[in-house]
């Protein structure tokens, strides 16, 4: 007799495989995008089942939500530009083969890896600048990785901006809807409130800059979609500085701690929690603006 919980997990795993197949074998790219979004949502559910609420939040917000928006936006743009968006059969086969090869290489690496002692995370946790283990790893133990990640995000925006002119035809007038506008008016204060809550919560429970930034980005994208705010150019005024704020803060803190204690990003005793909160605040702004910039690049109407 299979327990109901195991049955649920099995169904979840099988649906994931099926959705992954549907995403690859879809007849139209639109279908593929929709399958991918549903895949992301079920993936988030699987992370919840694996007791990883942080990853689940990130997967639902970034993997399903924002990536879905970006994919649909790219698809719409490709159709408007009459680009032959669907790659030919040989491209697909090549991509599939390379993915399989990469998978086999990674699997082989994982299997042949020498066994390592478990990470001494539990013992080290009392020394960390944050109570929540995920935040402690992201912003204390492996803060370097997060610094470089924020740099990668900024680089992605720079790449999108430089490609913009060559691939984006001018955008037609958006579909205005009073219903959408009233929903956005209703949701906006809630979004800002929950972003602040997630950011604050990150220190001691699942949450943090990535989740907060994504919620803010979603609010910004809704604002642009509903046409409540004129499309703004993030390359003008103080916006680039705001976009860079997380990275700049990170570099400043790294240099400060280097000068103070001799090791970059080794927080002084007692000051760690405040510094981590400061870094998370900066990262939230950078992540939110980077996603808005990725979404809106090519959407600013030239005549305004």
């Amino acid at each position, binding site marked *: 007799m299979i327990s109901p919980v195991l049955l649920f997990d099995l169904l979840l795993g099988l649906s994931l495989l099926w959705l992954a197949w549907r995403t690859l074998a879809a007849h139209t790219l639109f279908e593929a995008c929709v399958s991918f979004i549903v895949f992301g949502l079920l993936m988030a559910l699987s992370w919840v089942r694996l007791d990883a609420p942080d990853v689940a939040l990130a997967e639902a917000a970034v993997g399903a939500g924002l990536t879905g928006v970006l994919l649909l936006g790219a698809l719409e743009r490709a159709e408007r530009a009459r680009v032959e968006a669907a790659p030919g059969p040989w491209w697909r086969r090549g991509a599939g083969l390379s993915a399989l090869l990469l998978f086999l290489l990674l699997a082989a690496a994982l299997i042949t890896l020498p066994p390592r002692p478990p990470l001494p995370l539990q013992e080290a946790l009392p020394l960390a600048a944050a109570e929540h283990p995920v935040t402690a790893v992201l912003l204390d133990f492996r803060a370097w990785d997060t610094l470089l990640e924020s740099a990668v995000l900024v680089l992605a925006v720079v790449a999108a901006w430089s490609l913009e002119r060559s691939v984006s035809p001018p955008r037609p007038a958006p*579909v205005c*809807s009073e*219903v*959408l506008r009233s*929903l956005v008016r*209703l*949701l906006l204060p*809630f979004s800002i409130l929950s972003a602040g809550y997630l950011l604050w919560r990150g220190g001691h429970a699942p949450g943090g800059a990535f989740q907060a930034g994504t919620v803010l980005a979603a609010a910004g994208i809704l604002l642009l979609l509903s046409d409540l705010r004129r499309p703004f150019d993030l390359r003008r005024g103080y916006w680039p500085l705001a976009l860079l704020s997380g990275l700049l803060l990170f570099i400043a803190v790294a240099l400060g701690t280097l000068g103070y204690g001799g090791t970059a990003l080794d927080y002084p005793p007692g000051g760690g929690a405040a510094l981590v909160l400061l870094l998370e605040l900066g990262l939230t702004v950078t992540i939110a603006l980077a996603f808005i910039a990725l979404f809106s690049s090519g959407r600013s109407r030239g005549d305004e």
Partner: protein
Amino acid sequence: MSVATLLALSLLAGGLFFFIAGTLGLLRFPDQLCRIHALTKADNVGLGLLSGSLALLSGSWAVALKLLLIWLLVMAAGATVAQLVAASHQAGREGDRD
């Protein structure tokens, strides 16, 4: 079995009925507008019954209030999305006629 659990279970059954009916409608109804009609029933009533049942089972006011908030937000989002899908469907049909 206490009265609260019994009530929760019947709410759960009611919620499941609306979700199954909504899914069936989504799969079997002939055109887009009918399918939206079926889906919104699952979103609004089905989820409402489910959250009511879960709130009763949790036995905590804080959880019950959060579930209520989730239901209200999903209803607002669901109603808006249904309207937008219908509007884009309508726009597509008028585009065909031109």
